[in-house]
């Protein structure tokens, strides 16, 4: 039978049974032997003392069963030591003493074992706690080491700013950026380093937001000991146990080289886009000249008519006024066309603004109407009436539309069937605006349709193969996409999307 731990209070249970019970026999035998020796030398009879000791020893080391056996053996042994005439009361007293002692020892041993169990449990618990503590200390040491390494070896400037705007800790990169030892900066007020005006206007607002609990990210050009640098910084609140922000962790990455490279790339892309626009405009010279010439001719006709009415024998002022008004109207029309050409030809910074895509399409169509007419191509526009305005560079969007229309015109120049170009603008459910330009031309090159957006791929005899590539770059830089598909029953459809900003006013 197996007892639960709290019941297994016999300490000798870990010994073999034979040894445990052997101890009972051995201890009682030893008590008996010693008593007989005492009797032999006429010394006072000490059996009771020796027997109690043997019982106690057996209980203590061998457990309850052997202990009881030792008590019984002691009762039997006393018959060897006492005179046969010893009274039954005296024998009973001995038995009673052994019994009571055995019972007391049973409780003592039980208590002792419970105590030992408790001590063992507490010891195990302490050992576990100790192990955990050691592990925690190791982990903390490791974490501190890693944090220190990150802090000290980071390629970014890392610093901790207290709510009093003083440096609590700075890493070597930050120290190098300002050309002074890190130790000398600790305790220094930020304004002392960066200047009061710069601190108050540029840094403090971000820090105050951070101390209010906000994670702040920003990038800007700054001046430090290394010169005019473009820095991307993040301010993160550091909280203590009370959740109160005690400091700001500042990580500042110097992106000057990246910014300069991006700027150079952006400039190169802008130059390329401009060169492409100018190439397109060059191809359109004849049509644009005609486009401008028409209103100029009408204006000259009006002015001539006016002069004729005025130089009659009896000047007709009413007719002259009407003719002059018409001349002014046509001269303005010519100026508008020139402005349109100039705006698309201009070289300048890409400027995003709220733009009406339908208006951009209409203006581009107006510029290209004559080119289409030249090849007997009809242009049909189906523009969604309530398109929201989008954030876009108007010149770039017009460049894409112009490029796609020019491609469609090219594709239809030599076909004998109906030459129809359709431009559609519509809204998609996922807050996307779609512009599609379809034609009835020769269609996409069947074997190379996946290459039409590659740089320097062209099917035109004099093309440079950059138009679609640039158009796709422009659309993607606006967060949209540009793709091509077959038109039914013939021709191609080029479509591009532009995202509609959430907060943009309609």
């Amino acid at each position: 039978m197996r007892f639960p731990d709290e019941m297994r209070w016999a300490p000798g249970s870990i010994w073999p049974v034979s040894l445990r019970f052997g101890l009972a026999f051995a201890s009682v035998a030893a008590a008996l032997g010693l008593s007989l020796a005492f009797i032999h030398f006429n010394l006072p009879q000490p059996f009771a003392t020796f027997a109690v000791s043997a019982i106690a020893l057996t209980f203590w080391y061998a457990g309850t069963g052997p202990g009881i056996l030792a008590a019984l053996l002691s009762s039997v042994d006393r018959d060897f030591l006492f005179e046969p005439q010893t009274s039954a009361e005296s024998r009973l007293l001995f038995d009673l003493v052994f019994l009571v002692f055995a019972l007391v020892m049973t409780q003592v041993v039980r208590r002792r074992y419970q105590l030992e169990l408790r001590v063992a449990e507490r010891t195990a618990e302490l050992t576990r706690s100790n192990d955990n503590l050691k592990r925690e200390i190791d982990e903390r040491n490791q974490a501190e080491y890693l944090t220190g390494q990150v802090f000290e070896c980071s390629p970014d400037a890392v610093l901790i700013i207290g709510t009093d705007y003083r440096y609590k800790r700075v890493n070597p990169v930050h120290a190098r950026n300002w050309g002074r030892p890190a130790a000398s900066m600790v305790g220094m007020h930020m304004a002392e380093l960066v200047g009061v005006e710069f601190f108050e206007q540029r840094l403090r607002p971000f820090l105050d937001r951070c101390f209010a609990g906000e994670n702040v990210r920003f990038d800007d050009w700054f001046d430090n000991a290394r010169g005019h640098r473009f820095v991307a910084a993040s301010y993160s609140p550091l909280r203590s146990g009370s959740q109160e922000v005690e400091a700001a962790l500042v990580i500042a990455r110097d992106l000057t080289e990246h910014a300069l490279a991006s700027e150079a790339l952006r400039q190169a892309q802008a130059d390329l886009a401009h060169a492409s626009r100018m190439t397109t405009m060059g191809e359109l010279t004849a049509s644009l000249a005609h486009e401008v010439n028409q209103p100029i001719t009408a204006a000259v006709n009006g002015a001539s008519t006016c002069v004729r009415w005025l130089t009659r024998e009896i000047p007709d002022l009413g007719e002259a006024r009407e003719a002059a008004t018409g001349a002014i109207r046509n001269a303005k029309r010519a100026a508008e066309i020139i402005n349109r050409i100039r705006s698309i030809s201009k070289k300048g910074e890409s400027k995003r603004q709220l733009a009406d895509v339908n208006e951009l399409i209409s203006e581009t169509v107006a510029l290209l109407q004559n080119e289409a007419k030249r090849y007997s191509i009809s242009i049909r526009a189906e523009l969604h009436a309530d398109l929201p305005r989008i954030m876009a560079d108007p010149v770039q969007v017009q460049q894409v539309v112009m490029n796609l229309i020019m491609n469609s015109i090219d594709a239809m120049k030599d076909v004998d069937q109906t030459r129809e170009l359709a431009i559609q603008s519509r809204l998609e459910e996922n807050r996307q605006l779609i512009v599609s330009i379809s034609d009835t031309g020769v269609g996409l090159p069947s074997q190379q349709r996946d290459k039409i957006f590659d740089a320097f791929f062209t099917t035109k005899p004099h093309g440079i193969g950059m138009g679609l590539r640039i158009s796709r770059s422009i659309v993607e830089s606006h967060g949209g996409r540009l793709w091509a598909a077959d038109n039914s029953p013939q021709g191609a459809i080029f479509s591009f999307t532009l995202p509609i900003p959430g907060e943009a006013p309609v």
Partner: protein
Amino acid sequence: MSRNAEKKLIAIVDDDDSVRGTLKELLRAAGFSSQTFESAEDFLGSGHQQETACLITDIRMPGMSGLELQAKLNAEHCRIPTIFITAHGDEEMRFRALREGAVEFLPKPFDDEVLVESVRAALER
């Protein structure tokens, strides 16, 4: 009296509304009445060819061009004195037009005096 004396009509063919309108007004100020047509096809379909004393036409137009209109009229033995006005004029085109019997070949914008004189010349043919 010229052969054209009995014919009354000066026809203006140009796809551009503003040019067409102002040309008509210019001729009216100069004392001529005229009729305008949006395209060569419009003019041919109007049935006014025989009564047209002078044709003023643009060259580049959607559909039939001014030169094609002239060639078609010639092919139908309807020789109308024609003044070409164009923003795309080059010497070859000018030579071709004059060879086919054009009265004048005027680049846009043109001098009103030259146009009026050309119209007069056409009407007197």
